[in-house]
């Protein structure tokens, strides 16, 4: 049941990112809902599942776009790593972990995107891209985090706790 739910949420996040969210861009950037979903899923149901979700969502999001396929997966890994590092304290620090992972992870993601585009000879000026692109992207993703996190926590209460998966804490 949880995996069906994950598949539905991934599809919804990809479709929203493809067609709807670009029309509403506070601070000039659209949220990366797939990244926020993957990080929150990692915090709520474990980093192993979050990683799998990030891979599927990233590939699905990149296919109908101009980005190199796989770039979103690569960009999500720092955020997933941060979410996994906060794995030990699920009850007390889950939400701050999600916020931290989304915020710092988005900055790392944008830095990776810049590196890749620069390597491809398509990089915009770094200073402006970081200041006017990466920072707003992190803020916008952070604004979406409580909504997605609360949704997943609610679903977790309905569906039951997570299964055993790759985790760091004892």
């Amino acid at each position, binding site marked *: 049941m949880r995996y069906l739910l994950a598949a539905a949420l991934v599809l919804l996040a990809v*479709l929203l990112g*493809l*067609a*709807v969210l*670009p*029309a*509403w*861009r506070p*601070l*000039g*950037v659209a949220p990366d809902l797939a990244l926020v979903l993957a990080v929150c899923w990692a915090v709520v149901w474990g*980093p*192993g599942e979050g*990683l799998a979700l*990030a*891979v599927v969502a*990233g590939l*699905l999001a*990149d*296919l*109908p*776009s*101009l*980005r*190199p*396929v*796989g*770039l979103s*997966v*690569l960009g999500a*890994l720092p955020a*997933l*790593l941060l979410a*996994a*590092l*906060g794995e*030990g*304290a699920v009850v*007390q*620090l889950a939400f701050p972990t999600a916020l931290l992972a989304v915020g710092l992870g988005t900055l790392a993601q*944008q830095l990776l*995107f*810049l590196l890749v*585009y620069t390597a*491809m000879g*398509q990089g*915009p*000026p770094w200073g*402006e*891209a970081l200041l*006017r*692109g*990466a920072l*707003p*992207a992190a803020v916008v993703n952070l604004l979406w985090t409580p909504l997605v996190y609360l949704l997943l926590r609610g679903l977790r209460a309905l569906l039951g706790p997570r299964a055993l998966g*790759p*985790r*760091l*804490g*004892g």
Partner: protein
Amino acid sequence: MVGPSFQPQSGPVLRWALWLLAAMALAVATMLLSQAGALDPLRAFSLRAAAPAALALRGATLDASDLLTGLLRRDRLLQENEALRQQVERLQAELARRQDASQRLAELERLLQLKSSRPQEGLLGARVLALELGPLRQALAIDRGSDDGLQEGMVVLSEGGSLVGTVSRVYPDHAWVTLVTDPRSAVNVSVQGGQGDARGVVTGRGGLAPALELVPREAAVAEGNLVVTSGLGGRFPPGLLVGVARAVRVHPQDPFVEAQVEPSAPLPRLRAVLVLTTFLPTQLGSP
């Protein structure tokens, strides 16, 4: 009190690290494959497969947004409606005068055997399939491709005739259009209403309003001036509306005006566009 704990265990940590490395390897491999074009058929299929749901979702949310905006701003919309009605009347009169001038120009060009400055406009309508409006890339996908005669470099307009961007990548049944707001976009423009040589360049800045650059301060650009393509460089025909000058600033030490351009085309909310199929960019050789 139970605090945060971090008790690494070699088994799970190793397994996690391996999964992470595998994901990284998969990402890099697919990136290389996609850059080599090996995933193009899959990309085209995914765009086609996602299009019906994406279009329906997009249409429904834009309609809902318009309805909500209309309900919340009824009084303001009524005032705007009246102002727009008056503006349409003025513009119709202006259009009539311009059409007359345009006919005279065409006649003169024909008499002088000059290359037409405004080729017969062949416009091809296309639906917007997907939007990519990130800080590093600003593009949209349309449901027309090389099968419909599209070529790279063709100019794309909004339904109202304002500049949207240029076709940057063409597939048989769809194409990607790089928007004027893309950080790599630069359009030679002239500012209407300015004085003297009011020409410059509009450069995209990702999610922010494009910048109007290299316009001499003597041009006396003011807020609300219309910015149109100048035709210099041969990438765009002259006279296409790009947007309106905003946030104009003149610094004492700067020989150029600092300004932004508010694009006239509603880029994030576009549902359909027009491709100018009769204009192809001129490839300028070195002098």
